[in-house]
């Protein structure tokens, strides 16, 4: 099974969780924090912290609760964008 990460093709196993696939291939940093631009990576692994929010097939997904699919296109560039912020900031 193949996925594309920032334009590069990766061979992955069916059933792999995206955050684990990235970690296993040395991609610890997934995004920059919105205010300080500090590097961030998956932290809670259970879908709560949102630190693993990256772009998957054009939609923002939490990598730690996303299972790889053949042909998946993953982008870490510009992740941690305003779209993610809006989900939590609304009504605050």
């Amino acid at each position, binding site marked *: 099974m193949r996925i594309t990460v920032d334009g590069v093709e990766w061979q992955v196993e069916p059933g792999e*969780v995206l955050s684990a696939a990235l*970690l296993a291939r040395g991609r610890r940093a997934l995004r920059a924090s919105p205010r300080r631009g500090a*590097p961030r990576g998956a932290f809670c692994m259970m879908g*709560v*912290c949102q630190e693993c929010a990256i772009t998957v097939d054009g939609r923002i997904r939490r990598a730690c609760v996303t299972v790889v699919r053949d042909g998946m296109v993953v982008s870490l560039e510009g992740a941690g964008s305003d779209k993610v912020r809006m989900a*939590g900031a*609304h009504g605050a």
Partner: protein
Amino acid sequence: MSGPLCHRVDLAVLGAGPAGGAAALAASRAGLRVALIDENPEAGGQVWRKPVRPAARSAKADPGEALRADLRAGGLTLLYGRTVWSVGASLDLDLIDGESGRWERVSAGRLVAAGGAHERVVPFPGWTLPGVVGLAGATILLKSHGVAPGRRVLVAGCGPLLFAVAAGLAGTGIDVVGVADLAARGDWLRAMPSLLTRPGLLGQGARWMASLRAAGIPVFFRHALRRAEGATGIERAVIGPVDAEGAPAPGPEHAFAVDALCVGNGLVPGAEVTRLLRAPHRFDRLRGGLVPVTDEAGRTGIPGLYAVGDGAGLRGAAMAALGGEFAGLAAAADAGRLASDAFAREAARLRRAMARERPFSDGMAGMMRLRPAQVRAIPPETVVCRCEDVTRAEIDAAVEAGARDVNQMKQFTRCGMGPCQGRMCGDVAAELVAARVGPREAVGSFTARPPLRPIGFDELMGDFDYADIPIPEPAPL
């Protein structure tokens, strides 16, 4: 906007961990039509989580497999892969299907909230660096994903997960450079009598310790992280001694070159649904923080709403399953589907079983409790709120400027306003405000709002918008 697909049942159960799974089975066997919802692709919750990769599956018999088989056999409506993002006053649930983005609704009039707990990490300089992962999170990586967080790993924090993770990593050939335990060896010895009530688990603990000794992994008791350092990820972790309350104590520091750090300071009950619905809550340090007030069967102050498992106060998996069963039966009894004498017999059996589990459950919860002095020692420039990069100094400044509870502090600083909605920082932030203002009860907790789980903005359907969600006005300052 097209309406949601609606499931009409007698009882909705949010969360398919040990608590929710047991509740759903008990209620279904008593004759209720039950819908069981979980955002994971399968039942099991955190502790009985199904391995996603077949390679990570262990050969041992697994209570999770038994639960999954019972649930499949049971004639229940199993709504896995769905995230509950809102709950209405009528206890209707709004769900989103993670794959398709489809919106669904469960309408039941009775709801068991069994959403579990999440991890507490007391911040230290550098804890936001990639490669620093939660201790409980590391159990998911190891057990479910079959991946280690790094090649050279330090394990730090408190509670039994420390040794579970360290032994688990060492067992897969990872170089575990050390374990830093907030507790003293004597704290574990004092907890022994409670551990003795669960010889199986005590034996497991002994095996973990033996494997650490065999691998030559040093255990630093009464030590905690001072800082983590690195450029784009962790490269070095430094620990130092602490006193019985978790405050830094004099003595040599130890530095380790690492590419990963697993750190956790216990768990915090989610309590999201009960807080959103404004059920009565109380602060309970042993149970992890703010917990809903319930009777023994999990009935909350809101008719038809039951809260069980770690999300209603930390008690561990065995108590979660018993509490869940109790609530499932109570829901059936309250709905008039289980005769009161039959319910009384079952209640007596469950009470006895819970009494047997209680010493162990309390002992472990005590090891994982927050040490307030550790929070008070967080250096000023340390980020507390990861989402909004809010530091301890900024929180203190907000209190100086007049914030008297956590929601006022949030308005001043944006702490807790990011996509995790304060789930990661809420307990520590409240402790920091309380350190200057007064008891935890007085400073309150971040007001819970939908979405219950942080779902990405565009995980929702294209013709649907957050602006469509009626959201109460924030409390005036």
